């Protein structure tokens, strides 16, 4: 049993003079979902390419499932699944044939394509050509394809980008099911809400460097400001009041608010991962 599914040490890659990934190190535990967050050009895709053997690291190394990705590329690949951001399916083939092809490449015996397609919500459309699928359906098929070999590590690059809420939730549920199965999920995303909901830990990457790695909860504790947001009736309108929850006077401040003003709504407000990312890197994720 490997304790850490992924061990990255000093991983580095340059495109000419551009240092795309700058000596990054991190570990991902077995059965963990790690959110890999960063704006465009931060080095996310280059990191994933190195971890999946598509690019050779120029410095450092990556150990997946106890094997060096450079030295034992084929052995590692047989145990990983990759879901790309851009749909890259054989459009002239059916969904079922797409899956069967990859099952054969992985040498999966007794592969049940119908069951997998049912699991991603494509039952009844198994034999339709992929060219006739909607974007959401293609993305679900991409997820299904990354699961044909029951991988121990799944790399998912923006799996819900541009999808409707129903498709996003369906894919989110599959990620959670895979976690329950014991798979490690390396999730690259811009979506902070998705990362917060799904990930055990998140890593912020910016300009090729890891800026922070921790659980969303710890990051919020460390960098965020907890507060209560209230709407109070003033004259004919509403005004907002904010009470910091991390001071000794919080209880008294709440009491005074209710005594002195007419409170219409009140709720707690945590810093989002987006807020924390800005605080840590000085940049927005959407840049």
């Amino acid at each position, binding site marked *: 049993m490997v304790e850490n599914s992924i061990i990255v040490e000093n991983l580095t890659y340059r495109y000419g003079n551009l240092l795309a990934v700058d000596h990054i190190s991190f570990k991902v535990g077995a059965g963990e979902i790690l959110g890999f967050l960063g704006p465009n050009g931060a080095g996310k895709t280059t990191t994933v390419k190195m971890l999946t053997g598509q690019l050779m690291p120029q410095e450092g190394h990556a150990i997946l499932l106890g094997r060096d990705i450079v030295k034992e590329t084929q052995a590692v690949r047989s145990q990983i699944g990759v879901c790309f951001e851009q749909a890259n399916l054989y459009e002239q*083939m059916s969904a079922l044939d797409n899956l069967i092809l990859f099952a054969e490449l992985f040498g999966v015996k007794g592969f049940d394509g119908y069951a997998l397609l049912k699991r991603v919500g494509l039952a009844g459309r198994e034999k339709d050509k992929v060219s006739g699928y909607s974007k959401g359906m293609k993305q679900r098929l991409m997820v299904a394809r990354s699961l044909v070999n029951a991988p121990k590590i799944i790399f998912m690059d923006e799996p819900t980008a541009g999808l409707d809420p129903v498709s996003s939730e369906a894919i989110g549920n599959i990620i959670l099911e895979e976690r329950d199965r014991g798979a490690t999920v390396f999730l690259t995303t811009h979506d902070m809400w998705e990362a917060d909901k799904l990930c055990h830990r998140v890593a912020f990457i910016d300009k090729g460097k890891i800026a922070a790695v921790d659980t969303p909860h710890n990051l919020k504790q460390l960098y965020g400001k907890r507060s209560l947001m209230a709407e109070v009736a003033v004259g004919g309108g509403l005004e907002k009041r904010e009470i910091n929850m991390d001071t000794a006077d919080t209880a008294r401040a709440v009491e005074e608010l209710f005594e002195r003003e007419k409170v219409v709504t009140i709720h707690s407000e945590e810093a989002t991962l987006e807020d924390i990312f800005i605080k840590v890197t000085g940049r927005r994720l959407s840049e």
Partner: protein
Amino acid sequence: MNTRVIKALLKKDIALFMSNRFYLLITVIGLVFYIGVYFVLPSKVDEKLSLAMYAPVVPPAFTQLTNQEGVIIKYFSDEESLKQAVLNGSYQVAISLPSNIMDTWAAGGKPTITVYYASMAPPEISAAIVALVKELSYAQTGQALNFETTEEILGPDMLGNQIALRDRMRPLLAVFILLVEIMSLASLIAVEIEQGTARALLVTPLRTSDLFIAKGLLGVGLAFGQAVLFMALVGGFSHQPLIILVTLIIGSVMVVGTSFLLASLTRDVTAVTGWGVLILILLAVPGFGTVIPGLISDWARVIPSYYLTDTVSRVANYGAGWRDVSMNLAIMAGFTALVIWAGMTALRRRYK
């Protein structure tokens, strides 16, 4: 080499090939077209002799000869226009009689007759003309006379052979069939790179070499299969079928290597088509030399397809054997190994 992986890839590529109407259409239409062209072309050589002649004094026997079956004589008013008629291709052979021919014969001398040949005239015509002139001499004098002939070839030297046009075209058509598959296979690879499916394949346990082998088998299968079918239907295996088969196999592998190179140098299917047509034209050039002997000069030997067409032509049309074409086969094999290596190296970089 992983046979399971290669089998899966081949199955996929054949399915994609068959599902793409464009590939299927150009393959089937191409094959039918080339076979059709072969059978539409004349199967026999025109044996009627058209003869141009300049004769300041026309011997009476020549007038009789004009009426003979199989000979058409056209008289010219001067020697220069006679030569021009040969040069512009109106006649393959022309005869110029000296103005003193009758006097020379009468004096028992040997007149000198000048025979002009078009450079693309078959060599048999030379003997035919000498025989004709002897017959004329005999008809005129009642006995075989001695005479001198001077021969002059007009135009570039393109001496050919008495082979039907369609048989001359057979190697060219066979090579065309092979070459068209350069574009089909390159398009198939380009689509995989363009749509990112190649990237999806390369994060599975398959090795790049397995991918190349699968693509290579498909390319060789398509090119070789069609070329063999064509040659079988047009009687291209009547001489030394084994040499023809070996030549076509090497040619098919050359096609695969060229496809790899083309796919690695282009970004999409449109670019494959554009560059592919240029490559196709270049590689087809030596084939025209088999249709019109002498048309292609020595420079064509730098085009690798020269050795392909030349071998097929020499074996199928002239009955050449292993010894005759061994150098051609060696050069082809060497070039094919080079182009396969270059194609695989370039494509491996492209995949990454």
